């Protein structure tokens, strides 16, 4: 009898709290978005699952001795997992389109206005009772506008670990929503004629350019923004391994097995931060709202920058590729391509949009470094 009572007391049913139930539903919601709607499934499947596990009563997944506790503290609190993901992403990135058309770097730069405008907005939210974002919090939230998952997780783990769950959810959700968020903004800010602009074919980029490029980026980051070197450095290491041609087996492992292993653990670890007390509050609503604003502003800034560049230079760029500057590689570039095809069925913008797209990755890593340097500690 006592045994049965022990067993009953050890069940989930006897120990559930409402918050845990809600957070499990949130986890199920993430799984649904990932599996049924194909929303960034590689991260959202383990993350949604991690959210369920961490909220199981009694089981103690995220307490000392629990699996997710180890995963979080060994991999995310230290920054190791996002940095390894960044190395893998670097090994997957081809900077050819960017090197062939360096002007697109300005589009990637302009799109970062989404980050900094959101930072301002997050502080402004403090005027509403209930919100009390510090500068650190606001910076971690603003980076959602960078549309780059590992960058957001890395920065949030350094500046506002208690917001990490909500920030990651927002970042990956909006990245998945890029095909829905961006097109109306792109169409509203451009004329039919602009969307029809065809761009010159990109020049051939030689091997040596691709090898020296990551080293040059790293060198400049070292000179001007050491705080960004963890992110930029690991990214450039991955890219150098890809391009140098003498360590193909390392590059392949970084792009495949290593990034897959780390992605599973990163997702679980981020999911473990989706606990009721950290997620179920008005701040999460603020984060979700600000994230949407950040994406929209970033998209608009990229498009407007392209239009400005067309004013200043005779060589015309299709302003649609400016939207790809938010990063969200390669989704944003595909969106630019698709909207372009609607206006001109013979106009393939994909390769041209890859320039601002990868520029956006660098841009948000730089922005993260600036925020770390200015509001870190």
């Amino acid at each position, binding site marked *: 009898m006592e045994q049965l009572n022990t067993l009953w007391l050890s069940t989930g049913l006897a120990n559930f709290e409402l918050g845990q139930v809600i957070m499990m539903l949130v986890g199920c919601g993430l799984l649904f978005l990932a599996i049924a709607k194909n929303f960034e499934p590689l991260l959202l499947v383990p993350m949604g699952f991690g959210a369920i596990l961490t909220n199981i009563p009694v089981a103690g997944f995220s307490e000392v001795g629990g699996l997710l506790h180890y995963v979080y503290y060994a991999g995310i609190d230290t920054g190791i997992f996002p940095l390894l993901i960044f190395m893998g992403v670097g090994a997957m990135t081809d900077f050819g389109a960017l090197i062939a058309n360096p002007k697109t770097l300005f589009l990637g*730069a302009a799109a970062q206005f989404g980050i900094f*405008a959101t930072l301002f907005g997050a502080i402004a939210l403090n005027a509403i009772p209930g919100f009390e974002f510090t*500068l650190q919090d606001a910076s971690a939230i603003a980076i959602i506008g960078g549309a780059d998952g590992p960058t957001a997780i890395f920065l949030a783990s350094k500046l506002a670990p208690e917001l990490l769950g909500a920030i990651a959810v927002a970042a990956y959700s909006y990245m998945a929503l890029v095909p829905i968020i961006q097109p109306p903004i792109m169409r509203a800010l451009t004329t039919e004629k602009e969307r029809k602009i065809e761009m010159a074919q990109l020049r051939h980029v030689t091997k040596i350019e691709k090898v020296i490029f990551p080293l040059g980026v790293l060198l400049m980051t070292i000179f001007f923004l050491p705080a960004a070197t963890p992110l930029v450095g690991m990214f450039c290491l991955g890219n150098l391994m890809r391009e140098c041609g003498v360590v193909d087996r390392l590059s392949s492992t970084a792009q495949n097995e290593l990034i897959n292993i780390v992605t599973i653990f990163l997702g679980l670890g981020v999911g473990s931060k989706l606990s009721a007390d950290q997620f179920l509050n008005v701040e999460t609503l603020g984060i979700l709202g600000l994230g949407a604003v950040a994406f929209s502003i970033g998209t608009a800034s990229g498009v407007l920058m392209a239009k400005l560049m067309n004013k200043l230079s005779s060589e015309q760029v299709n302003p649609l590729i400016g939207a790809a500057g938010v990063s969200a590689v390669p989704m944003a570039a595909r969106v630019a391509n698709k909207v372009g095809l609607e206006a001109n069925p013979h106009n393939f913008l994909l390769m041209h949009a890859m320039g601002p797209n990868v520029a956006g990755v660098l841009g948000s890593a730089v922005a993260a470094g600036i925020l770390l340097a200015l509001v870190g500690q």
Partner: protein
Amino acid sequence: MDSLLQTFIEAGTLMLAGMVFVFAFLGLLVIFINLVLVKLANKYPDPIIQSKSKPKAKKTNIASNGVTPQVVAAIGSAVTQYKQKHGDKA
């Protein structure tokens, strides 16, 4: 309210400094590409038959149509053998 204003100003400065820095940084990269990389590309052009692009091309070839040159060779040889075995009338 005063402290809110101060935070606003701080956030504004941050926004300004951040955007200036991002543009400056990526602008320098543009210069780096136009000055350094383009010169390097002229000085060390890719060899016409790139040693590295060859295996890549081969891989793509396999990936895109699944037929390796060896298979083509094997087919040729099979056809030849068949011809010889069956006494070609051509």
